[in-house]
């Protein structure tokens, strides 16, 4: 698999680490236990296009948000993940 890092260019899979679903946003401080539970544990088992977190540990150390089709491995977009994993800024 090849991933086009927005900072480093096209690189091979071995430079990246997969984390998982980029959809759940971390609840802000003061969230209930149920909300945090959902954030930590509830994941869709996606067959098709999915938004995912990847880490370019073998390159620029950027966390990336990648749109990938889990059926074909086709990657339709790669962007820096800055800030997308938080629902709102914690106090």
């Amino acid at each position, binding site marked *: *698999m*090849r991933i086009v890092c927005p900072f480093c260019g096209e690189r*091979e*899979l071995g430079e990246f*680490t997969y*984390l998982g679903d980029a959809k759940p946003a*971390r609840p*802000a*401080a*003061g*969230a209930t*236990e149920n909300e*945090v*539970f959902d*954030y*930590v*544990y509830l994941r869709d088992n996606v067959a098709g296009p999915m938004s995912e*977190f990847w*880490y370019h*540990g073998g390159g620029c*150390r*950027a*966390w990336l948000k990648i749109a990938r089709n889990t059926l*074909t*491995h*086709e*990657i339709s977009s790669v962007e*820096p*993940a*800055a*800030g*997308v*994993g*938080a629902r709102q*800024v*914690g*106090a």
Partner: protein
Amino acid sequence: MVGPAQTHRLESGGLIDRAAPLGFRFDGKSLAGFQGDTLASALIANGIKLVGRSFKYHRPRGILTAGSEEPNALVELRTGARREPNTKATTAELYDGLEAASQNRWPSLRHDLMAVNQLFAPIFVAGFYYKTFMWPAKFWEAVYEPAIRRAAGLGRAAGVADPDHYDKAWAHCDVLIAGSGPAGLAAALAAGRSGARVILCEEDFAFGGRLLADGGTIDGVPAAEWITRALGELATLPDVRIMNRTILFGVYDGGTYGAIERVNDHLPSPPEHQVRQRLWRIVARRCVVAAGAIERPIVFAGNDTPGVMMASAMRTYVARYAATPAKRIALFTNNEDGWRTVETALAAGLQIAAVIDARPDVSAAHRALAAKGGFAVLNGSVSGVEGGKDGVRKIAVALTGGARAEVEADGLAVSGGWNPAVGLTSYHRGRPKWRDDIAAFVPDSAPPGMVAVGAANGAFGLGSCLRQGFAAGAAAARDAGRSGNAGAPPVADDEDFSLTPLWHVAGKGKAFVDYQHDVTASDIELAQREGFESVEHLKRYTTLGMATDQGKTSNVAGLAIMAVVSGKSIPETGTTIYRPPYVPVAIGAFAGHHRDENFHATRLTPSHHWAAEQGAIFVDTGLWRRAQWYPRAGEKDWLESVTREVKAVRGGVGFCDVSTLGKIDVHGPDAGAFLDRVYINTFSNLAVGKARYGLMLREDGIVYDDGTTSRLAENHYFLTTTTAKAGPVMQHLEFCRQVLFAELDVQLTSVTDQWAQFSIAGPKTRDLLREIVDPAEDLSNEGFPFMGAREVALRGGIKARLFRISFSGEMAFEISVPARYGDALVRNLMLAGKPFGVTPYGTEALGVMRIEKGHVAGPELNGTTTAADLGLGKMMSTKKDFIGRVMARREMLVAPDRQVVVGIKPVDKTRRLRSGAHIIPKDKTPGPDNDQGYVTSVCFSPMLDQWIGLGLVERGRERIGEIVHAHDPLRGEDYDVELCSPVFYDPDGGRQRG
């Protein structure tokens, strides 16, 4: 060495170099061949028909094909450490001195006693593994498996390490081409002329594919001349790379392809400093698959008799190698292409016994050929073969209309049609589609960027191969943004192709579908009767197509027979999933240079070379090599050395390299706020010049990692992690910084490799440090109190970081210098420490002292424990949000009966405690129901003069003083232990503060 005359070699012709004779041995017998031979063609030239014994029944087998689809002619190639089992004689290039041995026979190939397996054939039918040996289970290991392994099998592995080197390499190109037949060469010409970067991979050592045997006329010249011209032109193109002995074996995502280059397999051993094979990962924008097609057998009784050969292989041996598999050849065909073998054989002066053609209509041209050659053309099919290990003698023919005939011949060429090589196009779960006109599966789709052309796409005519290849090469170049002039395509005529499907001829005797796994037509019928009708079930139940050849010659016939017996069409029956690799690839090639000491990178601490000089014993911790202890002359074991090291530290001063701890510089105005969110305790209020122990949770509330973090300046913290988690914590913190808390102005820098860090511990630590540190620095208890952290100058002016932290529980400092000074520092510590008896200590003594002090480490931070379990619950701030805060409060994570860290010591003080022992209440029977935890860490404590340990025990902290039972079924030990405080030594911590 050059052996005897080659009895089955034609006087002239062939692409062999008669000026380069080669000697070789097969089963110990000296034989001769020529440069340009394969082992198979050389064996044929020497009149050898019997080359192996079959997998289950030990039936005599000969050479069936002339390529990598070969199921029968597998040999052990080379000897000693280079012995390579299951090597296809049909692709092994002959070299002088080659040694090969037949496989799966005892005591010899000609007299194989295991051939009695044929008498037991009924027990070796489809599914025999499942039926015969199901019960009792223990019999499997003791009886059945060893018996089967003796009786059925393939070659023997060398059994010793491979002495050769294997390489791994990357390549990038616009257009990757698989195969150098007419389609592949035409594609390369078109793409190369267009200005594309081209890589063409050819499995064979010679270029040209089927043209090498079949010839033809291209652009008005003989095929051989056209190949030479094409290769010549390609050589002039700047970005075209032509690789022989290289085959594409896999297709991966994003246009990445796997190829194996057999760099030096054609030599006895690789020349010095050269590799045996090279694994290529090729990244290509477009891929043109011109991998050709595989001729398929027809299933009939005795079709595995040596001397029965694929028609195309028969003419390949005659035309390309000038070797004659038979003198009097019969052809059994259901298609036009098979007749080429007749033409080739007649041209070489061989006799044709008869042609058995399953098609009712044979062309006038062929009839004229038969009249001229003096042989009969029989309309019908072969129903049996008489012969044995010495080859074919007589062929029984069932004529259309019911009559029978016999043909005397010493070789039978068979053509059941052609199967396009659909492997590469199907590796992304592509399902090929059925084409009735050629009765074969062709690619229906292909992975992105890939296209199949020529025979691989079901186009068998030479003209259409050239047209398709050229068009695909030009299109691929255009897709890759290359717009040069592709020029004119090469031109040739298209031959006629007609075929009447024929898969299986009824007859008496075993009729083989999968030669390599001895799967017969009746096995497939049996599988259908027993309900294993789906092709995936059929495959696993009969093992059809599961041998090293992956069913290249058998899969389609197998599912065609299944289609017939189950009353379905072939497309309804379908194909199994195709998976790489297309040909077997040596594990050594995948490993490349990553073996032995290079299996992974090795990280050496800054004091490593010095420690090695001291004779330190090292231990692997992750990628690191750490000094475990420093034995001294006269010490009888590790325990004596470690005990001395601990006593030396606690009684004087010692030092230990702790550079392996993960180190991260945290900079920025929000550094404190950031750390507050990732640690359970607070760091924003840490004073500059101070260090604090911190604990991190995972978001699910379980402890992740721990370490000390110091505030070196208002906006600069220095964070340490455990050795094991250095990488993961950095990744986690980057996630927090970039993704969760992107609004914070903070930067992280990994500085693990930049700093050499030593722990200096013991009551004489200050005395030693004063010899190292600039006298102007105040190291007194007031000037540098416990948990102080700041930069200091060393004597000579080097800046160092000094931290007054203690893992050992002694008065201690950790000192950091730039890594390049680490070696000098350790040598200076030894020199300056001599008057104080300074003692280097290793990770064992470090571990002993941390257990004596009840500090938790890896065995307790095991991915199941909470902060409270570790006795650190009070560190958890209630005033702020942090990673893991909410989940850590879940009911089961705060339950009162959780297993928590407690000290453990044997009641019998002379007894050794072992980690892993389970804790059982005194009056209860050992077992899962009464299991209350286990011992996590143990050591022999020099200070207490007994074995001590830490454990995770249910309600452990409430049960101090209770005697419980340690149950260790693994080692067969049972003994009483006392639960106690985890802090065994200096419980009020006075020593580290002093």
